């Protein structure tokens, strides 16, 4: 039992690791992304190489044994920016491995935290369906910068791909250094590592629409009902730099 395990940080990587651990009922002491920041002298670290074939078999097995909502919880929790997420997932799935019907055990101590975490991720992803602001830049595409707490890009990509099919666009997660690129001609999107080196150059139309939007937005507020605290709980300070109407 126990032990320290490392994987490559991808979902497939984690599944590979779990495919090895769960059947042996092993609950590790730690799971970390390769390479780890520091190692204690006496721990033995096992690094697991991602194995696509194994992943597919394992996922199929999970899909037949677990309700879709449970799989969704696992997927969402994996995207959480939370250092303990791998171990939490491991604990959760171990319960299922013991034959428990985890779908309904919402109050269990190995279920509730993961469920909560997945809800946080899901909620943030939902919020970002509204919090993305595209800017039309020279070169014929739309750019949006965001800095979400969790790695929500895979969750929001399908929504924007369906909605802005006829646009070339890009959503850049500045915090995690990755972005989605949508190609309107090929009708597909990709998530890639991404960093920005220069300010995007806005088109004239872009500047005009930003001005119009800002003035529209300020007009909407009803002065007698001002409630900045409520506004702040809905639009936290940390997301405002990315929102045209707050900049």
């Amino acid at each position, binding site marked *: 039992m126990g032990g320290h395990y490392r994987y490559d940080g991808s979902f497939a990587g984690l599944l590979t690791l779990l495919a090895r651990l769960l059947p042996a009922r092993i609950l590790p002491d730690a799971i970390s992304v390769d390479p780890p920041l520091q190692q204690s002298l006496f721990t033995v670290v096992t690094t697991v190489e991602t194995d696509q074939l194994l992943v597919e078999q394992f996922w199929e097995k999970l899909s037949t044994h677990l309700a879709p909502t449970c799989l*969704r919880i696992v997927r*969402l929790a994996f995207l959480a920016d939370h250092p303990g997420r791998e171990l939490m997932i491991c604990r959760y799935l171990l319960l299922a491995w013991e034959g428990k*019907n985890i*779908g*309904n*055990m*919402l*109050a269990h101590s190995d279920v*509730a935290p993961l469920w909560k975490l*997945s*809800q946080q991720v*899901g*909620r943030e*992803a*939902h*919020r970002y*369906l*509204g*919090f*993305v*602001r*595209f*800017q*039309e830049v020279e070169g014929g595409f*739309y750019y*949006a910068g965001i800095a979400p707490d969790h790695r929500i890009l895979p969750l929001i990509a399908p*929504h*924007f791909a*369906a*909605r*802005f*099919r*006829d*646009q070339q666009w890009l959503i850049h997660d500045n915090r995690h250094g990755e972005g989605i690129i949508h190609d309107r001609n090929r009708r597909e999107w990709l998530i890639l590592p991404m960093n920005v080196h220069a300010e995007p150059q806005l088109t004239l*139309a872009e500047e005009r*629409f930003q*001005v*119009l*939007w800002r*003035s*529209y*937005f300020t*007009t*909407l*507020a*009803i*002065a*007698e*009902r*001002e*409630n*900045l*605290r*409520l*506004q702040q709980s*809905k*639009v936290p300070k940390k997301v405002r730099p990315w*929102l*045209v*109407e707050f900049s």
Partner: protein
Amino acid sequence: MAIDMMDRLKILAEGAKYDVSCASSGSFRRNRDGIGNAASCGICHSWTSDGRCVSLLKILMTNSCIYDCAYCINRRSNDVRRVMLTPAEVAELTIGFYRRNYIEGLFLSTGVVRSPDYTMELLIQAVRTLRQGYRFNGYIHLKLVPGADPLLVEEAGLLADRVSINLELPTREGLALLAPDKSRDAVVGPMRQVNKLIVINREERQVSRQVPRFAPAGQSTQMIVGATSETDRQIVTLSEELYRRFELKRVYYSAFIPVITDSRLPVRPASPLRREHRLYQADWLLRYYGFRAHELLDEESPNLDTELDPKTGWALRHREMFPVEINRADYEVLLRIPGIGVRSAKRIVRARRQGHLGIDDLAILGVVMKRARYFITARGRTAGASNLESSLLRSTLMGGKRKQADSQLELPLSRPQADNEIIDLVTGEL
């Protein structure tokens, strides 16, 4: 050009901002090759400094009006600058905002120019440009003009996701007094017509999916509360009727706050926002909790309690039904317990299949124990002195809520429950 557009946009947004309907939910349009789709669960894009969510470009086409409604800033006899956007400009603005993901769609209303039919045609032209010219599949909510020709009403419903016509005032007398140019029939006629067309459309679409959708997100209405002397009982009963007879998706309540003076209007109604808030809570109970209007209000107490939410109020009047054992009670009964909302009731039903729940499990499932504790048992155990004397319990349940000033109330302009638990559901739960 941009400056002029900005001025007009400001004036026309100003004129529509008191219109409370905001939800863009309940529709689902797929995007084939154009732009946009209507998400079925509603997405808020921003929140104004009064805490209201922004999801639609909400504007008037024009603030000119041939009518003279007492409560309205755009009425004929009021001296304000009159401006107008052309249908093409409305469409261009909508698309420009939508492409940048500022909005979920358009909410288009207007003052009445020349005639109801002429005005209705302008609105339709804007929407047609969006749908056909820009191939826009996003959400559109169109206001119907009272007295408009049924053919135009039908056309509007074929282009828009939701249509609405404002009831304005809860009673015929109120309407005659404050909006003398509009008759109850000019409002209710189109409402009835839209409901008929929705029903027919639903049946036709059962037979063939080729039939175009008619107002897929249904219709809603709005009324001003507190400008005339109706009781809450009259209002809530009317809403119940509207939900039942015309299958309205939402009834919105707008607390009357004077924007202009008129001898027919009350000067400064008492706690208008608190009253509005309670009406929304009562409305929520009608739509999602299986309550009937007469359970919430009767002749002896025709107005909602301002200090207590209506569900807690109901529970205190029916103490014989409590405490409820949460491991056994039916879903419908769970829903009637203060502090247990639709979501937590569903979770309880799911979780207890796995084994009996204890008191401590409930908070995890989202139950607001502060309120629920007096009304429940779990495995036969109570979570507090549930035999508190009624009057004492009442003040206990009121405690803490007091500090909210009127202006601090959050407007529950929320969207209907979606089943997906992940979605951040809003506030209305009681």
